[in-house]
């Protein structure tokens, strides 16, 4: 996968104590991490992301694996921190389809930035967050985190088959969403979202190939 070699090099460097390597990892993965956490933890996403990276910093020396494994590890930590957050906040959702996620995503301090750059992203996150939680997480891990089925399953602690089904159900539900259909109707000759994967990484970042 493009960029994976760079991430692997950055990972090795970071494990050796090289702050530049860590910076490359952070810059490459933080945007996806944050978006995943906005679906999982809502307004607390930034805080949870910070906690996640602090744990990474603390435990990086004991981590063994390549960049792909690191990605899984990172999102696993993020998920656990997100769940911790819910427990602490005492508002763990038993029924994820109650619209709570929908309200959370879109709030928070990032709004003014999103207004400039991420209206479409904001819209997309809001719709994904309206899915049942398992579907939302599966879609985010597959699409935004760039994980395959097996890797997503490791993050979620579920069987690959279950992740595949959850992803498909999520896509089906999104395809039927009225806003998605309206957007589709509003478009003329559509462009293809080719090469979308990894495009979440910022362009021009240090040592990271974006595609």
């Amino acid at each position, binding site marked *: 996968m493009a960029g994976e070699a760079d991430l692997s090099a950055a990972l090795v460097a970071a494990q050796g104590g090289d702050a530049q390597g860590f910076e490359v990892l952070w810059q490459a993965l933080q945007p996806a991490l944050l978006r995943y956490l906005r679906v999982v933890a809502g307004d607390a996403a930034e805080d949870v992301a910070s906690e996640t990276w602090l744990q990474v910093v*603390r435990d990086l020396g004991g981590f063994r694996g390549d960049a792909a494994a690191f990605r899984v590890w990172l999102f696993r930590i993020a998920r656990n921190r997100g769940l911790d957050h819910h427990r602490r906040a005492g508002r763990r959702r038993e029924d994820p389809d109650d619209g709570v996620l929908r309200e959370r995503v879109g709030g928070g301090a990032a709004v003014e930035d999103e207004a400039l750059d991420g209206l479409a992203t904001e819209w997309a996150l809001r719709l994904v967050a309206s899915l049942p939680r398992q579907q939302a997480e599966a879609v985010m891990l597959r699409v935004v985190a760039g994980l395959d089925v097996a890797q997503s399953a490791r993050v979620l602690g579920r069987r690959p088959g279950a992740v595949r089904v959850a992803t498909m159900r999520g896509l089906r539900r999104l395809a039927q969403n009225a806003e998605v259909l309206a957007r589709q109707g509003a478009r003329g000759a559509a462009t293809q979202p080719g090469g979308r994967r990894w495009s979440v990484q910022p362009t021009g970042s240090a040592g990271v190939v974006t595609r």
Partner: protein
Amino acid sequence: MRWIGRREADRLLAGGSVHADRRGLADLLAALAAPASPGELRGKDAAVAAFVQAGGRRTAGGAVASTLRRALAAVAVSAAAVLLGAGAWAAEIGALPRPVQQVAHDLFSGAGVPPPRPPQSDPTSGRGEPAESGAARTGDGPAGTSPPGGPSATPGRGEADRDEPPLVQLCRIYQAHQLHPDDVPMGPQSLRRLAAAADGAANIDRFCVALLAEAERDRDTPGPTGTDSEPSPSAAGYASDRDDGPRDQSGAETHPER
């Protein structure tokens, strides 16, 4: 509406071509993975700073790249020069110890800080000196190539920029420019200044990361006194790397810069 099958789901997830009646969904997925906004990279300085703090304890076998180390040392010195009026004044009149003066000049060449006198000519003379000597050694080029008539070469800069060194501002602009080159223009003169301070255009990224991280930290805590033996806690943390002269020279190039 057609039911999404497994094959089509895979195609959607991979960002491949889709039928016209899936374009709304394809749009949504593309938006999910759209390029990062500046807001999404907001915590980078803090994250890197946290790593540096933790990393200072485990440099055994770790090759902290020379550019970063140099930048940390340089910024430590700059913090001293900026935060302490006397230090700043000393730098402006060229009275700091030579390595310190060189770094101060590298960082604030546009702020009226002169280079050390006499100019350093032997690149190996600094070996074994404290961490910031690395900056002095490799700073020969940029010090000489700094645009002499930069936009900030006006008198009295030392006072005006004490709270916000121009390079810090330039770095902020630079990072925004990297993300949104169209929205945040950056002139060639500014880029040259940054390249000079970072010891090469290829190093601007990491230079700015280190500079901003340190600037953020130093904003709350007063800087060290600016003696050349203990420039700062962070620089002192890399004291064990002092003697790695060869790596000091080439380390920056061994890391991915693609």
